[in-house]
């Protein structure tokens, strides 16, 4: 019961599938929260300049995996390597789901971005020239310069998403993790934010990990996908992973993958058509090496 690189079973050592060494790698990670198994045997790597989609239905454990990557949740087993990411001063940055922004928060977009720069330091945020330049530059990069002085709570969902991305980018992180940034956006903003993620990854050599329940908006920009279902994961390129036989094995019941007009439809059949797929990887009862991260 472990994740496998979809192209072949040989890709067990995650880096093999990447063109460049990963800045962060998740190695055989399992998480048990409150006695419940959330995910198991998750394995993938993040390379600079690439967008990786963490795709799965609601409740598949996407947020948990993101929080493990960030170090906010300790994996019960397995290990997350962040040595590569630690080489950049910004390290890891996180954009939580957008509704977390309080509508009445008395901060301008630029204040929020400034906190990304030095919010972890003590003292008051002195308005120096250098700080202003960095903040302006980050806002510019994500196309948010036009509403830099507006209250964050007054902005639309897509605008807030851009500001939060600027907040994440301003400290020049190696990895940016976004939790469902496309949720609750209209189709156009969805497209724009997805394109923005692709551009940010390519231009600034950032590894972007983005969770979504739908694979389609990310198709144009996504290099790789981690598909999460039934507490397990498959990792590979979209072509390798989003295929009927791979997802059928992951879900343990028949899944049709249809490609229509450049879109991908993943249609799991009902439980009635459940097929029994023996776990090829692990004999029953084996538990894998338990190793704590950090």
């Amino acid at each position, binding site marked *: 019961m472990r994740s496998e690189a979809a192209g072949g079973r040989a890709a067990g050592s995650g880096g093999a599938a990447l063109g460049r060494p990963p800045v962060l790698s998740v190695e055989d990670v399992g998480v048990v929260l409150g006695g419940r198994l959330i995910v198991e045997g998750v394995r993938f790597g993040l390379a600079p300049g690439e967008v990786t989609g963490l795709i799965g239905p609601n409740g598949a454990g996407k947020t948990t995996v993101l*929080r493990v990557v*960030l*170090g*906010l949740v300790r994996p019960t087993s397995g290990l997350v390597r962040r040595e590569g990411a630690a080489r950049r001063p*910004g*390290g*890891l*940055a*996180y*954009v*939580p789901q957008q509704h*977390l*922004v*309080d509508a*009445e*928060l*008395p*901060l*301008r977009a630029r*204040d*929020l971005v400034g*906190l990304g720069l*030095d*919010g*972890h*330091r*003590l*003292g*008051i*945020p002195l*308005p120096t020239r250098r700080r202003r330049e960095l903040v302006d530059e980050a806002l510019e990069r994500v196309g948010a310069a036009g509403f830099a*002085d507006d*209250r964050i709570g007054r902005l639309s969902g897509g605008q807030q998403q851009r500001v*939060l991305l600027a*907040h*994440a980018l301003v*400290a020049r992180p190696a990895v940016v993790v976004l939790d469902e940034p496309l949720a609750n956006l209209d189709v156009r903003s969805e497209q724009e934010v997805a394109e923005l993620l692709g551009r940010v990854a390519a231009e600034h050599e950032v590894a972007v990990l983005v969770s979504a329940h739908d694979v389609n908006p990310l198709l144009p920009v996504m290099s790789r996908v981690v598909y999460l279902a039934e507490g397990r994961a498959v990792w590979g390129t979209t072509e390798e992973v989003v295929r009927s036989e791979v997802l059928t094995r992951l879900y343990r019941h028949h899944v049709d993958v249809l490609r229509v007009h450049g879109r991908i439809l993943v249609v799991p059949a009902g439980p009635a058509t459940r097929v029994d797929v023996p776990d090829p990887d692990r004999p029953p009862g084996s538990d894998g090496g338990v190793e704590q991260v950090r």
Partner: protein
Amino acid sequence: MFASFMAGTWIAGSAVAVVAGVVGYFVVLRGETFAAHALPQGAFAGAAGAAVLGLSPVLGAGAFSLLGAVVIALLGRRGRHDVAAALALVLLLASGALFLGLSTSYAPEVFSLLFGQLLGVGLGDTPAIVAVSLACVLLAGALFRPLLAWSALGDASVVRGRRSAAVEAAFLVLLTLATTAAVPVVGAFLMFSLVSAPAAAVRLLARSPLVGVAGSVAVALGIVWASVALGYLTSWPIGFFVGAGGALSYGVARLVARVRS
């Protein structure tokens, strides 16, 4: 009004206003108004207890609001503070009642500790109050960015920054200090008004954090100075004017915000 016997009141009142303005900004930002309501009750009990023992009311207020903060932090560890804070509040109020029952100098003490009193602060009390206020402002300045980041962004700031538990604890210490300085002056029931009203009013209007804190301090100072003056002229309790001024400032801010948008 500016006679020498009023000096202590003016100095202590101003110090408390500054503290309430600064701390209130974060209380409102973080939505912790309930803790800001509960801790002064603890301070009241402590000050009453100190009176029984013949100790400084500031000392008693400090010890008990610290106790209240620890209780809130421990009971509310899993995030939400409301039930823990409510229980702490009732327990502390009850202790306050007991101490006042044991105390011989009953009525004026109760009144001044609960509602504040114009002449309740002599010049001799001011050094302690000013010192605690100063500590408070310095601590708030040091915690400014982490508090702001954590309040505004939650986990997004924790990834790079300090642990949320540490920020939370530091915030409660800050609130404790502020309460200690304020209760002997404005009283336990009205401390809440001075902490929350100016900050809530400014929150509606100010956009940047530094302007927000400065505005909050200015409004709090205005309320306290007006209250002292009116209290002196009418000899009504200062607490009434503080409470009324808080409500008024918030109302005006709402009106302005509405006209503006």
